[in-house]
């Protein structure tokens, strides 16, 4: 098949139409945008392989699938015999069949029907805004805008207060203050400080200084006494090393044994000096026996429990066993025996943590009355001063010797007669002396009995000194221990589900020398260590101990140097 091709194109330089002539001798002629096509139509509207001209009883134009799809004019397949005079439209081109010259099967002229930019520009004009950018969206403008807004709103306005920039008032007005920088709520006790950041953060770009804390917490207890040189031991530590605020409203530190155990695991080394504390790492596994504070003649002493039981010297005779006798105890006025239990004497104080102090007037005097004359049970010696008691006895019998009726005189002195002043007439010097002698002899006897045999002696340690004026008695100072473990925070109220006797084994105690404080293994029956354990209360150091404890509540002589303390932490029984 020989085909003559005449194609028109426009000269780029001068715009004139140029006709090129090409002869093709082939079984088929390709039409398309593909550069290898024999009829090359360079227009985006033409498919790569748009059509084929083949010899099918004469040259025939066959539009192929791609061409049919891409064809701008028709959607259906096209197959046309190329007879002279026929025109086929292919996109913007026109294929005109001319009369074939001699020796050719066909002559084709390719004409540009429309220039690509001519025709109906209206649609193209309208369809110009096809991308996001074309409708005016600008990444960079938005980005810069946001950046500036955030920089100003989140930094330059809030920072005005810190750096004294002139727009402080404006920032307040917009409520863009350093409140924005607050990383979290401060603990409840600090909330009165409110949003005054500078109250604690007083110097910009510096960590919160201890001075800021101590402005309020001026009297906070040290961890250890001044004799242990806390400044050297805690060098480099700040309040904020342990106390971090803005971590919620509950607390500024964690109940974490690590805080304590880091040093107390090997406290002897860490303290760099001789200390009474022993190493400890966990309550369940490795806690030393308790150290009790015991009042002794030479002052309060701290004594660690050992293999043998501790003894207390309270200068008081008090057998718990007698008082707690399940059959009851004799009462001076009631007929029945009275059964006492612990709270007959040990009444919780208002805190419920511990108990009201024991006193003679409140707890003992109902049974232990201080009557000294069997005939007159309503008269008692005063409690508290030995000299007053001696005077009271002497006054009683002197008065009886002076004004006693016959009956009471005879009952008291076991001799016939009556009070001196009751006898008729002026008493003779002899009679006066006799009355005085009788009264004095009786009161001396009763006093001696009172102190050395019956009443005082029953409970107290009594010392007698024979002086020129006669015997004098001294009641040894009673040392009832109230704070046994000053380093521990113990709350009786938290243990109210237990019986007293679960911890304090006093029912068989016959002497007040017995110490009824529970040993550590008794505590360990319920309290585990810092790691959770089945059926045990997980107990870390801070459950019982405090850090700021340097106030020696067991030492009555101790006076804090800084005056009043409000951070009392240790205490309890």
């Amino acid at each position, binding site marked *: 098949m020989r085909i003559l091709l005449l194609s028109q194109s426009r000269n780029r330089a001068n715009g004139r139409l140029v006709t090129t002539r090409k002869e093709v001798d082939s079984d088929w002629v390709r039409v398309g945008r593909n550069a290898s096509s024999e009829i090359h139509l360079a227009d985006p509207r033409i498919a790569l392989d748009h059509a084929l001209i083949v010899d099918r009883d004469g040259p025939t134009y066959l539009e192929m699938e791609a061409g049919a799809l891409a064809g701008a004019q028709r959607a259906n397949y096209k197959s046309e015999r190329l007879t002279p005079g026929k025109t086929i439209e292919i996109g913007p081109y026109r294929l005109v069949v001319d009369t074939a010259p001699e020796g050719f099967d066909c002559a084709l002229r390719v004409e540009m029907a429309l220039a690509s930019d001519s025709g109906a520009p209206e649609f193209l004009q309208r369809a110009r805004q096809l991308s996001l950018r074309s409708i005016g969206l600008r990444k960079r403008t938005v980005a810069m805008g*946001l950046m500036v807004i955030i920089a100003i709103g989140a930094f330059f306005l809030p920072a005005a207060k810190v750096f004294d920039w002139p727009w402080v008032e404006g920032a307040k007005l917009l409520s863009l203050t350093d409140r*924005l920088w607050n990383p979290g709520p401060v603990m409840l006790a600090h909330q009165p400080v409110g949003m005054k*950041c500078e109250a604690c953060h007083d110097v910009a770009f510096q960590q919160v200084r201890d001075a800021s804390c101590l402005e309020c917490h001026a009297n906070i207890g040290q961890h250890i006494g001044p004799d242990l040189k806390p400044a050297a031991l805690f060098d480099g530590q700040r309040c904020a090393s342990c106390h971090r605020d803005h971590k919620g409203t509950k607390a500024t530190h964690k109940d974490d044994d690590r805080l304590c155990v880091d040093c107390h695991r090997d406290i002897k080394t860490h303290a760099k000096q001789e200390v009474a504390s022993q190493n400890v790492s966990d309550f369940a596994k490795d806690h030393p026996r308790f150290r009790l504070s015991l009042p002794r003649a030479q002052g309060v002493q701290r004594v660690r429990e050992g293999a043998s039981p501790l003894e207390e010297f309270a200068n008081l005779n008090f057998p718990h066993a007698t008082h707690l006798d399940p059959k009851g105890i004799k009462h001076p006025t009631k007929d029945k025996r009275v059964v006492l239990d612990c709270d007959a004497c040990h009444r919780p104080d208002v805190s419920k943590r511990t108990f009201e102090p024991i006193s003679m007037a409140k707890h003992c005097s109902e049974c232990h009355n201080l009557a000294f004359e069997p005939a007159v049970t309503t008269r008692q010696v005063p409690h508290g001063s030995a000299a007053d008691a001696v005077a009271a006895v002497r006054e009683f019998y002197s008065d009886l010797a002076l004004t006693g009726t016959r009956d009471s005189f005879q009952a008291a002195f076991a001799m016939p007669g009556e009070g001196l002043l009751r006898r008729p007439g002026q008493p003779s010097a002899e009679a006066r002396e006799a009355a005085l002698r009788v009264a004095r002899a009786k009161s001396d006897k009763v006093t001696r009995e009172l102190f050395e045999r019956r009443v005082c002696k029953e409970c107290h340690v009594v010392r007698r000194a024979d002086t020129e004026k006669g015997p004098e008695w001294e009641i040894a100072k009673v040392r009832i221990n109230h704070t046994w473990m000053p380093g521990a925070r113990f709350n009786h109220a938290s243990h109210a589900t237990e019986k007293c006797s679960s911890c304090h084994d006093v029912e068989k105690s016959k002497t007040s020398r017995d110490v009824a404080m529970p040993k550590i293994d008794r505590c360990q029956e319920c309290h585990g260590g810092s790691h959770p354990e089945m059926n045990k209360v997980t107990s870390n150091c801070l459950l019982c101990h405090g850090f700021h404890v340097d106030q020696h509540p067991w030492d009555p002589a101790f006076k804090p140097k800084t005056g009043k303390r409000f951070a009392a932490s240790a205490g309890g029984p």
Partner: protein
Amino acid sequence: MLLCLACAIAYVWHEPPIRPYGGTWLGYTLGTIGGLLILWLLWFGIRKRRYARHSASLRGWLSAHVYLGVAVVVIATLHTGFELGWNIHGLAYVLMVLTVASGLVGVYFYATVPALMTRNRGQDTLDAMLLKIADLDRNIAHKALSLPDELLALVNDSVHKTRLGGSFGRILSGRDPDCPTARAIRVIPEAGKSLQDEIANVDHEVYAMLLRKQELLTRARRDMRFKALMEIWLFFHVPLSLALLAALLAHVVSVFVYW
């Protein structure tokens, strides 16, 4: 992955003084790693424009940008200790998460859209489709002149009022609910029933061309939408990332002002 895992292990192992937060030594470490990562990720915006210098292939950079971008979320979350509030610190975190999320949307679009785009275009470019539509318009306008007024009006609407793009909604949805061409196609079959002879033939031809135009319009709109999808996430990603830069600096400086 290793980085995330290492950070997570450190987080679990670490026993903070009160509870996990940005101010413990691990918090500062994670914060520093996260902050430096963010700066490096931002550098990608500059690096991708530097064609001349090749410290590593841009492809490698992009891959690292994506993976480390995701890692930043993990690291920054650990840095917060899972504590967020209505403050500058929370703002920085939220911006970081949004930036990464918009980036991931981009990753998704880049993974799925190009294939759809190629399939939709076939052998045409968007320009070719537009030219074809313009050609069709001319032919339709010419042919329709012999149609009754009522139909001519419909066809003229299609020729003169069909829109492509022009508004955010139309570009991104790839649709025009009020397209005159679609309306013409809907109405003509019914309205042209009464036509006869030559006019009916013309009507058929016009209708066929309108269908063709509609098909091209649909493809062109889809193409436009695909292109927009490939871009749209960047309109969030870039501004958010720069906002994040500002918030990050404010976060860091403010933390140390009130140390």
